[in-house]
């Protein structure tokens, strides 16, 4: 069992190393088989772990190795397997596996095929670390890893300027969130002296409300960045520059839900901080509504889906904020199914149309690509919340919770959001698949259904989108809730609101009515009276332009943050060039002048003196060297003469008498 847990992230890691280091040496076939094969094996291991957890019902910690230790501090590279992790594991590896399979078809013949799969597998490794880690540091490693892979894959077509810019934008915006997340980790460590979830949550009761609020809000900043909520959501629509499987895997099904996972994982801290909870709920509610309104008028098929992702993530945050953690994870799971399905079918459409993404240039595709149409329709029904598709159960549960908790404003926002969701999704469907064809004649000739390797995974996802919701049936008491209860009940009184059947039924009816209303309006505007849509847009030009330009938020951020930052950079550049460089250059000039002076002194004073001495010596030597004749005799003669002189001098010195006496005797 422990081995099984450890193996889950190891398989993709091996594939990353092989494909990353040796991928150029072997064929694309082997590369993609390694990629999806490894994820498939991980999925099998995850199923094994899931079954085991289901059987024993015990959370389990597996220590891979002791990583950082010293003094009281020990941080392990360790994994925590509890019901929440199991759900995330199944979603990540399962959906990931299907998307990998799909990518084989979608990316066929693309430049950098092996690179793509290396990044994808690296993403899987990071995401698995993120959901499996048993402490904040491992979570953070995974958190940064998925951010990196997101950056690499958004910028996959790196020779496209817009893709490179979008990648940078995603990375920089995520940095803001990560700063908050890091602060939260520091606060946790300062307060608990440990980073392990179990120990932190066990001691959480000692925390003051203020500190719990601070930690929870810092975590929220991280979650908002990663999960693209107001105010940091702007990177996600731009992230659609990446290949469509990337949008499906990273920017819809898994990575962007990491924020939700983190909040649910830390719900013990959030439960202690009502202010933070309220903030989460309102951030979620506002995002759900706000992004949905933008989605109404966008014309790029992937961007509509991106705004819908932002909106759906808003629902999950809303659920977290009112304490409905199970509902949040439930929606996370169903959303992973139907949003991956929608993105991949959209990819199939784009594939069929040779890269066309503008829905205004589509239409009438139902007859030409029937399979894609059927699968996309399943996804649309699921996200719109039509009974009995997955989205109906999970979204309805969130809305019911909002209602039961007395958050009527939030309920209204969610309900309006649901109406808008149904509307823009059916608008997308009608514009893409129904009505008259608005295709380029040139593109129209080449329209073709996608190969089985792409349709197959879509079919599986469609089945999941249809049936996935039944994991949470009946509401509040379904299998899913009982399974997750072990996690979400920690540190709480264990009271999940008991809701009367009558109220539940009423709320379900209302939700269905809302969804059908949205569908009906879309049907009216884009199928029955197609000219009406343009008329409405013309009647409200301001509103339409504002929505089309995404409330000018990007421009606002540019003006408020990006441009001032750039200006500050330029100002610093000026300061650096004039002041700091001025000082440096000034010192250099001073040194230079000093050395010039020194050179002059050397040349005209020191050398002059030396030359004088040398010349004098030279002249003196000229007369004296005559003495050196080279004749041995002369030398000997001088030697002897000197010797005699010396003897005479010594004798004279010593006062002669005794010396001469010896010589005389």
């Amino acid at each position, binding site marked *: 069992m422990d081995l099984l847990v450890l193996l889950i992230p190891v398989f993709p890691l091996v594939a990353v190393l092989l494909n990353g280091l040796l991928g150029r040496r072997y064929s694309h076939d082997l590369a993609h088989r390694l990629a999806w094969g490894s994820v498939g094996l991980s999925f099998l291991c995850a199923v094994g772990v899931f079954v085991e957890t289901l059987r024993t019902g015990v959370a389990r910690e597996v220590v891979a190795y002791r990583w950082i230790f010293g003094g009281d501090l020990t941080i392990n590279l360790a994994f925590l397997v509890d019901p929440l992790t199991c759900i995330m594991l199944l979603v990540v590896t399962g959906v990931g596996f299907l998307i990998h399979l799909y990518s084989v078809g979608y990316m066929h013949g693309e430049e950098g095929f092996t690179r793509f799969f290396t990044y994808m597998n690296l993403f899987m490794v990071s995401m698995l670390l993120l959901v499996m880690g048993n402490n904040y540091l491992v979570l953070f490693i995974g958190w940064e890893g998925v951010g990196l892979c997101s950056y690499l894959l958004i910028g996959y077509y790196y020779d496209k300027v817009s893709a490179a810019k979008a990648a940078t934008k995603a990375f920089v915006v995520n940095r803001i969130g990560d700063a908050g997340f890091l602060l939260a980790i520091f606060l946790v460590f300062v307060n608990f002296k440990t980073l392990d979830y179990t120990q932190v949550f066990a001691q959480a009761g000692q925390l003051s409300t203020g500190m719990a609020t601070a930690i929870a809000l810092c975590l929220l900043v991280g979650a908002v960045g990663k999960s693209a909520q107001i105010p940091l959501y702007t990177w996600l629509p731009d992230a659609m520059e990446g290949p469509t499987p990337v949008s499906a895997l990273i920017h819809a099904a898994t990575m962007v839900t990491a924020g939700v996972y983190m909040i649910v994982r830390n719900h013990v801290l959030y439960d202690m901080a009502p202010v933070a909870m309220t903030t989460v709920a309102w951030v979620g509610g506002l995002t759900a509504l706000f992004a949905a309104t933008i989605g109404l008028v966008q014309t790029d098929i992937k961007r509509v889906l991106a705004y819908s992702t932002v909106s759906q993530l808003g629902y999950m945050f809303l659920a977290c904020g009112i304490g409905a953690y199970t509902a949040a994870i439930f929606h996370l799971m169903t959303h992973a199914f139907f949003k991956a399905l929608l993105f991949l079918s959209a990819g199939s459409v784009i594939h069929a149309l040779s890269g066309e993404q503008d829905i205004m240039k589509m239409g009438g595709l139902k007859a030409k690509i029937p399979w894609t149409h059927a699968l996309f329709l399943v996804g649309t029904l699921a996200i719109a919340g039509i009974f009995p598709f997955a989205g109906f159960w999970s979204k309805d549960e969130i809305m019911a919770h909002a209602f039961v908790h007395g958050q009527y404003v939030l309920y209204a926002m969610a309900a309006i959001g649901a109406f808008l969701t149904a509307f823009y999704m059916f608008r997308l469907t009608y514009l893409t698949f129904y009505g008259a064809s608005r295709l380029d004649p040139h593109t129209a000739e080449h329209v073709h259904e996608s190969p089985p390797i792409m349709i197959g995974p879509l079919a599986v996802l469609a089945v999941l989108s249809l049936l996935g919701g039944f994991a949470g049936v009946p509401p509040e008491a379904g299998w899913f809730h009982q399974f997750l209860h072990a996690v979400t009940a920690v540190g709480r009184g264990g009271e999940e609101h008991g809701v009367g059947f009558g109220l539940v039924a009423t709320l379900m009816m209302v939700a269905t009515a809302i969804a059908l209303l949205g569908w009906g309006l879309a049907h009216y505007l884009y199928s029955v009276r197609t000219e009406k849509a343009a008329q409405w847009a013309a009647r409200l030009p301001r509103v339409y332009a504002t929505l089309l330009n995404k409330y000018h938020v990007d421009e606002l951020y540019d003006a408020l943050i990006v441009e001032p930052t750039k200006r500050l950079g330029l100002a610093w550049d000026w300061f650096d060039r004039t002041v700091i460089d001025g000082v440096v250059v000034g010192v250099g000039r001073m040194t230079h002048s000093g050395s010039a002076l020194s050179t002059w002194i050397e040349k005209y004073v020191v050398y002059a003196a030396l030359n004088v001495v040398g010349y004098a010596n030279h002249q003196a030597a000229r007369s004296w060297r005559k003495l*050196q004749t*080279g004749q041995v005799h002369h030398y000997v003669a001088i030697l002897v003469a000197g010797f005699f002189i010396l003897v005479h001098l010594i004798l004279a010195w010593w006062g002669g008498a005794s010396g001469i006496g010896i010589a005389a005797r």
Partner: protein
Amino acid sequence: MIPLSAYVAVSAVLFTTGLIGVLIRRNFIIVLMSVEIMLNAANINLVAFSHYLESMAGQIVALFVIAIAAGEAAVGLAIIIVVFRGRLSTNVDELNLLKW
């Protein structure tokens, strides 16, 4: 009994002979021989004083001098041969490169 002064006198005569030989002769070999004479004059002196002062030190030094004289003669003759090969001459006046 020959007085010490006699030995010293002989020694002085020999030394002077050698010195003059070194100063005035032009043949390198003769110059070398004159140096040997001077050395032997010193030897006589040493031995004579050794005997007179009844100390063996003088005689031992004389033996050292003889050994060194042999070495000096060998090196000196070798130099002469080399110079002769180069210049076909043993005239000391022509060997005047040892100057500034």
